[in-house]
């Protein structure tokens, strides 16, 4: 009982830190940088560009809660983009034949199928064969990246009327603003954003109120006691990886919707960004601690700091990398201090 209570309060503490930091950063940007940050669309742009990352980070949060890891999500996203792109725009593989374009609905199934396959295989290897998750997903990432270039080497943009319609952002006119040339710029939100937010909501309830969600925390917190509680540890691990794989598939499709092209270099580094956002969102790699809402704010914080850096006149690309890393470093140190203090106070109580 006691450990469980501690975990939940850890979760809320780390979550609140993240949320406060995000709002502090955003408001700071509004005050000191003004210009773009005062517009609602800047926020939507952050969401549009990072909807896929939100989904992948959610998957990572799940596996990190059970104390595992998956670094293949970026590769899966690239593979999904390429396979869907090749399917939707068949003329790329058979130039000059003018084939009918592929069906958008089927392409979604392809994305889900790839995600599912990844989840099944990796989940089985990790949960039932007890192989290090890092190595399994490392190989998974290698495989996905290599496979992407085998499917098609050159990057290309998809020509498919139905798909191009789907990827158009939703225009919200009443949230739009008038720029200095006097034109009304409507607010634009991509469909992927709605998908991502919906899934965040569902996962939030699953983790919080369902038996499955609670067993995730139990397995990540302490395997032996989870076993004693009658939880099937292997099955729980398997399910977490399965869900992560499916989320990577969906995330890949959302990414594909955002960029509208297939390329082997797509979503490169996405796995690291996803892990970083999960950590900033208060998930701990030791397992047992984590929150989906935190992950959402983790992604937003990461994206916000990137856009602050680029609009603050630090025009060289390297500043983004350095600030993101600095932020990650800060959060990791805060986490470890928080945990150390908690442990001390627990000891005192005892």
């Amino acid at each position, binding site marked *: 009982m006691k450990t469980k209570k501690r975990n939940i309060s850890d979760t809320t503490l780390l979550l609140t830190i993240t949320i406060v930091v995000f709002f502090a950063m955003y408001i700071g940007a509004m005050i000191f940088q003004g210009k773009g940050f005062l517009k609602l669309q800047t926020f939507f*742009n952050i969401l549009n560009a990072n909807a896929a990352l939100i989904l992948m980070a959610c998957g990572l949060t799940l596996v990190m809660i059970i104390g595992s890891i998956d670094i293949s999500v970026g590769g899966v996203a690239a593979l999904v983009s390429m396979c869907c792109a090749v399917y939707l725009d068949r003329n790329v593989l058979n130039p000059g034949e003018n084939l009918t374009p592929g069906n958008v609905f089927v392409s979604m199934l392809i994305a889900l199928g790839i995600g599912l396959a990844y989840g099944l295989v990796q989940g089985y290897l990790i949960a039932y064969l007890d192989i290090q998750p890092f190595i399994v997903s490392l190989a998974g990432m290698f495989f996905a990246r290599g496979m992407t270039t085998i499917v098609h080497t050159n990057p290309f943009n998809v020509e498919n009327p139905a798909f191009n319609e789907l990827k158009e952002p939703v225009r919200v006119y009443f949230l739009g603003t008038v720029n200095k040339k006097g034109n009304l710029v409507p607010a634009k939100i991509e469909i992927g954003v709605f998908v991502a937010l919906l899934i965040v909501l569902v996962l939030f309830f699953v983790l919080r109120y369902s038996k499955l969600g609670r067993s995730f925390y139990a397995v990540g917190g302490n395997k032996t006691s989870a076993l004693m509680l009658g939880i099937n540890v292997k099955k729980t691990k398997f399910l977490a990886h399965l869900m992560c794989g499916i989320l990577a598939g969906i995330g890949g499709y959302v990414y594909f919707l955002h960029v509208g092209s297939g390329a082997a270099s797509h979503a490169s580094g996405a796995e690291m960004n996803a892990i970083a956002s999960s950590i900033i969102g208060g998930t701990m790699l030791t397992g047992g601690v984590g929150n989906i809402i935190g992950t959402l704010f983790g992604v937003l914080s990461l994206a916000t700091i990137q856009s602050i850096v680029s609009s603050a006149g630090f025009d060289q690309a390297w500043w983004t990398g350095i600030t993101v890393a600095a932020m990650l470093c800060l959060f990791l140190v805060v986490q470890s201090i928080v945990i150390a203090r908690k442990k001390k106070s627990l000891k005192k109580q005892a």
Partner: protein
Amino acid sequence: MSDFLFRKIISIILSVSLLCSLAGCTPAGDAEAESVVTPDDIIVVGFSQLGAESDWRSANTESMKSVFTKENGYELIFEDAQQKQTNQITAIRSFIQRDVDYIVLAPVTETGWDTVLSEAKEAGIPVIIVDRQVEVSDDSLFTCWVGSDFELEGRKVCMWMSKYFAKNGVNPSDVHIVDIQGTLGSTAQIGRTKGFDHMASLYGWDVVTHEVGDFTKSKAKEAMFAILRNYDNVNVVYCENDNEALGVIEVLEASGRKCGSNIKDGETMVVSFDGINKQAVSSLVAGQISCIGECNPLHGPRVESVIRKLRSGQEPYKYQYVNEKIYTNSNAVPSIMLGGKEYGVTVLNESDLYEWPY
């Protein structure tokens, strides 16, 4: 207990910050007039550069930065996309949000720009494309394009080679040539490859293979290494930029070959493009590279003149090609004819190196 207090504080902070952010968002239109820091006479230009992969690119960036300065009445917002189209799309969207006057785009690929360019058009911001071209359904999505005719560059260099071979009595079927391509899908690669393929089949050269060198020295070294393993009859290497050529020369020399124009005596001829990299130009003077097709990166002044025209209400030309030279180290071929036009060949020597502009 302290947790409770903590939570309360947090909830207060949160609600305050939420209110602030809402307040900050809604009156954006009104707050505009006051919050605009830049006075009207400063022209804000957003430049989305695709990366910093080669010397050509760095020179291009520098040229833009040196023209769009505060002294000249401009504010330049520069974004390096690190070779990713998504970063460029994000950058253009942020330019639109930050109310820039002009957007300059050096696109990483040719396709996939319709959505974001139409957003810029909706906002009434003119877009000037530099270097690589874009393929859009509607030409009015961008104002104009400034850059090089890459296919012509390729043809010019090939023409020079064929003239040179003819003069030195090299049989076309004895020309075993490989193409080290640039980043696949980029305008420069497409153009230079197209020019190469066209001329190679026209003159009946033996095209051994195409390999991708990504415009970088390291990738080109890797590619050349693989080529030498598999084909030992290669005697001409067509590199699609200088950085590739430098890598290729290193591999060739390390494997015991000599780089030079005299392929009859077993030398390996290397031709290249750009003419920015001083090391490459000195290799040309030293005879390791036989011919370089110039690709001029100094687009800053050209883009500025387009903006001046636009401000004075004039219509600039839609496609603005830059006149470019052919550099070589011997006067074996004084000029070439292509498409009914004569192009002079510039012979470089030691003294040119000291004044090389880059």
